[in-house]
Structure formats: structure tokens, C-alpha cells
């Protein structure tokens, strides 16, 4: 069988990647454009990045987004982890299927519906919309992602490690904090990062549930784009892309490094 790259394979890859990344590449290139016109290249410049930091509206929105993402990711991580533990550990309690279904429903729920229903709820109970309503909304949809990540770790968790701790005199609650949590911490952290990223780029749910003074960055960008794309927007998007890229690359490098270290240590242990 011929395993060498054929013309068909090469062109498929090129086309595929172009389809995925060409728009982003164009966006990044035009963020360094001298001209105010987004479609006409007029030479290299970083002036829009400077402009960006002087744009109080965008900076405020970025700050709101960061706070919302941090608070909602943290709370979602706690709740999602608890949900995952319940699902994995409590065996077949009454209503387990219903419970797990309800935990995972937001994964497939259309954002518009989640947003709208939350808006109706906040209006019904007369809750002033603003920073906290966005946080609550983000918790509800990001919690299930945390639950999925933590649950997949817990499934492979050797419960005899917990039993060993209890056998040695450690009460159950303490066992959770000194044994279970440290072991599943990588999964909890990646759950947090997932929740943080999801909150960072959410537009729909935030638009439904926000109120005065709590405009998030995606909302700000969206509203500005409606008045026409400015190079400033390109610049802020480029910064977001850079941040996400750095985050993802760092996380995968750490995982890879740990894996390599572990393999080497194991090989060393076997030898002597």
C-alpha cells in the first residue's frame, strides 16, 4: 500500500486549514494596518493597539468580562465537581438518571433558550440585572462542562486510595480534602479553565441577562461591529487570540512535560 502523500491528501489539508484559519490570519494581519479602512492595506503599524488601550469603553468591558469569567468559573468549578462526585460515587440512587440528564442538559440546550429563560426568571423574581445576573447565568451553563471533565477523571479514580486513608484513621471529610482533591486537582483545574474560556467568549447568554454597567467584551465588540469594523476591534481580537493560544499551548506543554517525566521515572524505577 502506498502511504506517501498524494496530491489529493495535500490539497485536502491545505484547503481544510485555509478554511479554518484564513479568516483569523486576515484579521490578525489587518490589526497591524496603518489605514482606518479595514480592507485596504496601507503599511505596517501598531497604532491601533495604542488606540485600544485608550478606548475606555473597550477596556471597561474587558475588565467586566475578566471578573465575570473568574467568579463564574470558580463557583461553577465547585458546583460541577460536587455534581461529578455525586454522579460517580453515590451509585444507583433514586433519580440518578434524571439527575445526570439534568446536569448535562445545558450542554445541548440552545443558548438562546438558556438566556431567555434566565432573563424571564430574573424579571419574575425582580432581580436587578447586572454583573451578578451574568455570573449566575454563566455558572448554570459552564457547570456541566466542569462536571463532565471531573467525572471522566473520577471514573478512573482508584477508590481504594480513599479507603486506605480512612483505614489509617482519616475521617471521610478530611480524606476528601487531603487525598481525593489533590489527586483530581488537574481535572478540576482544567474544568476551571474550560469554564473560564466559555464565560470569556459568551455573547448570547450575557446579552440576555446583563443590565446597565455590565457590558462584557464580546457584547461590546458585537455592538461596535454593527457600526462597522474598525482596526481597533481587529486588535482586541488579536490579543484575545494570542491569550487563548498561549493558554492552550502552555497547558498542553505542561501535560506533555509531566507525561515525559512520569514515563522516565517509571523506566528508572523498573531498572533499579
Amino acid at each position, binding site marked *: 500500500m502506498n502511504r506517501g502523500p498524494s496530491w489529493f491528501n495535500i490539497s485536502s489539508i491545505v484547503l481544510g486549514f485555509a478554511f479554518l484559519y484564513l479568516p483569523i490570519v486576515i484579521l490578525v494581519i489587518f490589526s497591524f494596518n496603518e489605514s482606518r479602512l479595514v480592507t485596504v492595506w496601507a503599511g505596517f503599524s501598531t497604532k491601533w493597539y495604542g488606540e485600544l488601550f485608550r478606548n475606555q469603553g473597550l477596556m471597561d468591558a474587558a475588565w467586566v468580562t475578566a471578573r465575570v469569567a473568574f467568579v463564574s468559573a470558580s463557583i461553577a468549578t465547585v458546583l460541577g465537581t460536587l455534581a461529578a462526585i455525586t454522579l460517580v460515587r453515590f451509585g444507583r440512587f433514586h433519580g440518578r438518571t434524571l439527575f445526570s440528564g439534568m446536569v448535562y442538559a445545558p450542554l445541548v440546550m440552545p443558548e438562546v433558550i438558556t438566556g431567555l429563560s434566565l432573563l424571564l426568571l430574573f424579571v419574575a423574581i425582580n432581580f436587578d440585572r447586572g454583573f451578578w445576573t451574568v455570573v449566575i447565568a454563566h455558572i448554570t451553563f459552564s457547570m456541566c462542562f466542569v462536571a463532565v471533565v471531573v467525572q471522566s477523571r473520577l471514573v478512573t479514580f482508584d477508590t481504594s486510595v480513599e479507603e486506605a*486513608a480512612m483505614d*489509617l484513621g*482519616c475521617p471521610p471529610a478530611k480524606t476528601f480534602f487531603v487525598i481525593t482533591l489533590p489527586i483530581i486537582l488537574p481535572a478540576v483545574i482544567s474544568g476551571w479553565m474550560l469554564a473560564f474560556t466559555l464565560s470569556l467568549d459568551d455573547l448570547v447568554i450575557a446579552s440576555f441577562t446583563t443590565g446597565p454597567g455590565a457590558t462584557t467584551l464580546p457584547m461590546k465588540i458585537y455592538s461596535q461591529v454593527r457600526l462597522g469594523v474598525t482596526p481597533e476591534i481587529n486588535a482586541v481580537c488579536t490579543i484575545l487570540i494570542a491569550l487563548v493560544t498561549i493558554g492552550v499551548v502552555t497547558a498542553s506543554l505542561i501535560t506533555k512535560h509531566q507525561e515525559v517525566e512520569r514515563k522516565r521515572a517509571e523506566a528508572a524505577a523498573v531498572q533499579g
Partner: protein
Amino acid sequence: MARKASAAKAASAKAKTPGGGKNVGPVRRTFAPWNDPAAKPFILFENVTKRFGDFVAVKNLTLGIHEREFFSLLGPSGCGKTTLLRMLAGFETPSEGRILLDGQDVSTVPPYRRPVNMMFQSYALFPHMNVADNIAFGLKQDKMPKGEIADRVDEMLKLVKLEPFKTRKPHQLSGGQRQRVALARSIAKRPKVLLLDEPLGALDKKLREQTQFELTDLQQQLGLTFLIVTHDQEEAMTVSDRIAVMDHGEIVQVATPAEIYEYPNSRYVADFIGDINLIEGTVASVRSGKVTVDTPDAGKLVVQQDIAADVGQKAWIAIRPEKVRIGLGKPAARTPNVMRGEVWDIGYLGDVSTYHVRLPAGTTVKALQANATRLVERPITWDEQVYLSFAPDGAVVLLS
């Protein structure tokens, strides 16, 4: 097949040097509190039943284990031995009955308040802690002063010969080293009883044999009561003072390794421990310590045994392969038990050969012969007519 044969060998070696060698002093040989009616068992399972839904894992079981005893629970997977162990550790609560530890009812005491420690099958080391912290964990729970903890950890590391690995994490250790860390961790608190769940299952054969002796050594050095769960009969034979053979949640026989091997009380036990030949027949006569069994394979066979059996009752003569003699000519020794048969198969294992001989009525009997000289040409080959014989005190009659 090969494993079973070598197990039988290990068992017979053990019969010659009870307890298994150098570390057995004269005190050990007379250690038999279970024969003393005045001795109170240290651990007592009293009519214990454990159900998981409809499944009965342990059935109305009563068992006493004495202080300083090395006790094995032996049986196939699913026989309830691990459940019994976990009930003593506190991870399961008995559905019925109670468990006494040193006279106290511990049936409902949570695991973290019991003076027993367990060594887990998977070792269950804390992956995020180094060797020293793993060993110190139990001591820290007891709020032991820091200095004492450090001393005890060093003592434990020395005991299991792991001093150079103090700061390593579990994943930086080999299987054998992990096993020793798990052992050190479980005895660091000086528990009254140490429970071991298939402690050597994950080790390779050589390491397992070495560790078995280390375990018995350690148990005597520390004077602890060991309760070990295993499905490996060879392991149970090597390390235990007494063995309980379990089947379907019930204990079939409790006895010393030699008794279990030489006097199994049922076909189940006989078959589970070592290799055995069973020749079916009916009881022809019972008198003055001698049982005669009429077999379709070899006529009347005589076994020296005190047994309460009725004439005409169905019975099995159980005889270990190493106790069956094989020869081409009629055996010179005067024995009433001579059988004729045809060599069906020969298993050459190096040190010994197993001859599978087919008797006239179809039963296959295995005869084990040590290869005392180099095997150039077999004196006995396939399809040959041979004589088998065994001494009346070499076999037992089983009624169930």
C-alpha cells in the same frame, strides 16, 4: 498444570520443615492456640451474614482467629473472602451477626476508628505524596509528635529496606518497592491486626516467593496477627499458621496447611489445594481404622482412616500424585492397593515427571515421580501397561 505440580512440591517440602525454614524457632512449632479450648480468639466472626441486594456474599459464618496467628482466607474469586476482610476493616457492615475484636463488638465502628490496618491489593499508595509521607500518613492522623513520626518512619523504611527511596514518589518505584511501601504504611501504626488483600498478586513469581518469607519473618518479629486473603493456594500454604478454605460465602475447612493438604474434608478442598486423584467407589467395609472401598477401576482399595461411613455409601479415594508409585513390574512392597493401567500421557517438568495413567473403568490417575537420574531414555513410555500402588496411610476417603 505445571503450577499445580510445583505447588504440591512446595507443600510436601513444607511438610518436612514445618513453617518453611530458617526463621522458625522451636516456639513456633508449638504455636497452636486453636487446639486450646481455654484460649479466646482475638478476632471472632459470630454468625456473620453479608448480603448485597439478593446476592449473599457471606453466609452465617462463624470463625475465630487467635492473637499472633497468621491466618489465610483461601478461595476462588467471589467466594466471599474479600467481603469478610472488608467487614473486619470496616468498609462493609454485616447484614446479620457481629464481629468481635479483642472482646469488643466492632461491627458498626467506622474504619477510621478501628485498631486494624489493611494492605490493599492495588497497594493504594497516595500518588501525590512521597514514600516517607505515605508511611507517616497514619501516624499524623493520630497526632503523634513530629519527632516520633520521623523516628517511626525511619524505622519502617529500614524494616522494609527502602531507606534510599524515602523522597521518591510512588510512580518512581518498581512494583516490589511499592508493595513494600504499602506494607510499611500499614504496619507503621502498630495495628493489632494487619489485613492483607492479595498482597503479592501483582508481583512476579520470584519476587513473590521471596516476599512470602519476608512477610512471615516480619509477622513474627512484630508479633502481629495477620489475616491474609488470597486465591493462591501455594501462597497460603507457605505463609499461614491456619487456612480457611471458602466456597460460596461459607467456610469449608479450617486447618493447618499440612492438615488441609493431607486430610482434606471434601472433594472441593482436596481439589482446590494442590493436585489430587479421585477414584470413585462404594464403601465395602469399615473396621478398626481401616476403610475398604470397592472401585470399578481397581477392585477393593484399603485406606487407613477413622471414619464414620455406612457400607454401600458412595465414597472417593483421594490420593496425591506424589504418593502414587508407578512401575513396570508388580510392586515388591506388600501393599493391598495395586492398580493396573495404561500410560496415557507423560508430563516432563524437569525435576519431576507426571504420568497420566488410565485405569480400566476410565479414571485417569496421575503419578508423580522425581527424576533421580538424567533422563536419557524413559523406562516407562506411552501406551505401556503399568502398575500403580499406594500405601493405605497415603490416601484419604472422602464422603462429600
